[in-house]
C-alpha cells in the first residue's frame, strides 16, 4: 500500500515562487504554511508583507494578505488585530524592514505585547534592492554599500534583534533559529509553531528570527551560502530561545478600558 508522506500544505498555493535558487524565503514560507494548517487558522489569518523580497508573498500563501510600506508591518498588523481581535495576524519581515527602517514600530508593537506572530527573516543583506548593507550585516562583510567590509568605526555593530526583543516586557516568546540543514529547519518549524501558539492560546507577542541565506547577494552558490550562515552568521547571531514566558495572564490589552470622562477636557499647547 502506498502512503503519502509529503505534500503541499493547504496554506501554500500551488505555484512556483520568484525567489532565487537556494533562497531560504521559500523554506520559511513552507514552515509558516504548515503552522497555518496545523492550528487551523488559515481561514482567519491575515499575513502582512512589507517591502522586501517577500512583498509578493500574497502569490504564495493561501490566506488573506496585505502589503505594508517598508518598515510598517507591525503598525499595519496592530491596526488589523486591534480592529478584529478574532483574526490571526502574522508579519513576515526582512532585517532591513524590521530592524532598520521599522525598528520603532517593531519595538513598540513588541512592548505593547500585541497579539501578533512575527517571522523575521535575517539574511544579513538587503535582498530586494540588490545587496546593500543591512543592520544585521556582519563586521567585515562586503556588500554593495560596504565594498571594503562593514566596520565598527563607520557602520557600528550588527543589530541582534532576538536579544533586544527578549528584554521587552511585552514579548512572550522569542527565539532565533536557522534553516541551513534539516535539523535546523525542524527547529525553525518548532519555533514558528510555538510563536503561533503564543498568539492563539495566550494572546501574546511571539517573535522568531530566522537566519536565512541570500545566495544571490552573498554572491555564493546555494550550498556555500548555507555554509556561510552556519559558520559565520551563527557566530554573531547565536541560535536559541531567548525568552519563553510560561502561559499566564495575557500581556495584551484584552478589552477596552473603563470610560474615563463624559466630555473631553480642554488642554492647551
Amino acid at each position: 500500500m502506498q502512503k503519502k508522506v509529503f505534500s503541499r500544505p493547504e496554506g501554500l498555493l500551488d505555484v512556483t515562487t520568484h525567489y532565487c535558487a537556494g533562497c531560504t524565503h521559500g523554506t520559511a514560507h513552507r514552515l509558516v504554511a504548515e503552522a497555518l494548517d496545523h492550528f487551523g487558522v488559515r481561514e482567519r489569518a491575515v499575513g502582512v508583507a512589507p517591502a522586501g523580497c517577500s512583498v509578493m508573498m500574497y502569490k504564495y500563501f493561501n490566506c488573506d494578505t496585505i502589503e505594508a510600506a517598508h518598515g510598517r508591518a507591525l503598525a499595519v498588523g496592530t491596526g488589523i488585530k486591534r480592529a478584529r481581535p478574532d483574526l490571526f495576524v502574522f508579519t513576515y519581515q526582512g532585517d532591513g524592514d524590521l530592524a532598520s527602517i521599522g525598528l520603532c514600530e517593531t519595538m513598540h508593537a513588541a512592548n505593547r505585547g500585541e497579539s501578533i506572530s512575527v517571522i523575521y527573516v535575517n539574511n544579513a543583506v538587503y535582498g530586494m534592492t540588490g545587496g546593500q548593507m543591512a543592520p544585521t550585516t556582519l563586521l567585515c562583510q562586503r556588500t554593495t554599500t560596504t565594498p571594503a567590509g562593514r566596520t565598527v568605526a563607520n557602520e557600528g555593530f550588527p543589530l541582534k534583534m532576538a536579544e533586544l526583543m527578549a528584554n521587552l516586557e511585552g514579548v512572550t516568546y522569542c527565539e532565533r533559529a536557522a534553516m541551513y540543514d534539516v535539523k535546523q529547519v525542524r527547529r525553525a518549524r518548532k519555533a514558528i509553531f510555538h510563536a503561533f501558539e503564543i498568539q492563539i492560546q495566550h494572546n501574546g507577542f511571539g517573535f522568531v528570527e530566522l537566519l536565512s541565506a541570500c545566495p544571490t547577494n552573498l554572491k555564493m552558490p546555494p550550498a556555500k551560502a548555507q555554509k556561510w550562515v552556519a559558520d559565520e552568521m551563527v557566530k554573531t547571531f547565536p541560535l536559541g530561545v531567548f525568552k519563553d514566558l510560561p502561559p499566564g495572564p495575557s500581556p495584551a490589552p484584552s478589552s477596552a478600558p473603563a470610560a474615563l470622562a463624559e466630555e473631553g477636557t480642554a488642554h492647551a499647547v
Partner: protein
Amino acid sequence: MADRGPKKLVKGNVALAEGAVQAGLRCYFGYPITPQNEVPEYLSGRLPQVGGIFLQAESELASINMVLGAVAAGVRAMTSSSSPGISLMQEGISFLAGDQLPAVIVNVMRCGPGLGGIKTTQGDYYQATRGGGHGDYRTIVLAPTTVQEMFDFAVLAFELADKYRNPVLILADAVIGQMAEGAYLVPDRPIVTVDKPYIVTGAQGRPPQNIRSMYLEGDDQEELNYVLQDKYRLIERDEVRYKTTQIDDAETVLVAFGTAARIALSAVREARKMGMKVGLFRPVTLWPFPTPQLRELSQRVNKFFDFELNLGQMVDDVRAAVVPGTRVEFYGRPAGGLPTPADVIQKLKEL
C-alpha cells in the same frame, strides 16, 4: 431633517471627535500634537464607551499605518494630527490611496515651515489638495469653518471615504479646532454605510484576498493609475461642495475657506453696510475644487479677491478656474498674523 436636540457649547476638536464616533469610528490611532490634542484626549475616554479602540501610537508613521490596517479589516478608523505630523503620514496616505482604502485623516493646521508654531494658519493647502505624498493620487479635502461643520464633516468624511474607497482629509485650522461654539451633536440624517467586499478578514468560504498597491506584471500599475483617475473624475463631477453669500449682485467676490472665510464673511457684511457690492464664495471641498462653479461665476463677475492665511496657495486654483481676463487679487498673511475684517475691507478698497 432629523431632530438634532439642543445645541451644546463645545470646542471644535471635541465636536469633530464626537461626530466621528457617531459616524461609526471604532479605531483611533494618533500621536499628540497641538492644536489638535482635544481629539485624542476626548476619544481616549469616549471610544471605550462604544466598544471602540483608542491607541496612542509611537509616531504619526505608526498611526497612519495602524489606520491602514484597521480599515483593511473593515472598521471605520481615523487619525488626527497637525502639520508636521501630517507630513510624516504622507507615505501612508499614498498607500491608502494606492490600496483604495477608506480612511479619515484630520489636519488641524499649524504654522510652518519646520516646527513652526501653533498659531492659526492655512499653509498646508497645497499639500492637502495635491495628494501630498508620492504618486498620482488625490484625497478628498473638506474645510470646515464652524464647530458645527467639524461635527458634520466628520460624518460626511467617513461616508465619502467608504463610498469612494479613498482617504478623506479634514483640513481645519487652529481657530476652528480650539474655539467653542454652540453645535448640534447629533447627525442631521441616518449614517450611510456600505458593504466592503475587498477587506482582508480571513479566507473563509472564499479565495484569499490581498490588498496592495504594487503591481509588477505587465501594465497593471499603469492600469491602477487609470482606475484611480476615473474615480477622481467621478468625485470631481459629484462631490464638489461650496457656499456663497450675497454673490447675486456682487461686483467683487471674495474667495476664502476655513477661518479666513469667517473673517471674510464679517468683512462682506460690513462692506455691504458701506454700500460696497461684495460677496463671498467659500469652497467647502478644497479637492474637488469648485472650478466649474467659479468659472461660471466669473462669466458675470470680473473681480475676485482671494483671501488666505498663507502667502497664496488656493489663489492658483482660483486663477485657473476663472475665465481669461478676470481680475484675481490676493491678500493673505501667514503664520498667525490674523487679519481683521477691517483689514480685508481696507484691501478691498485699495483694489
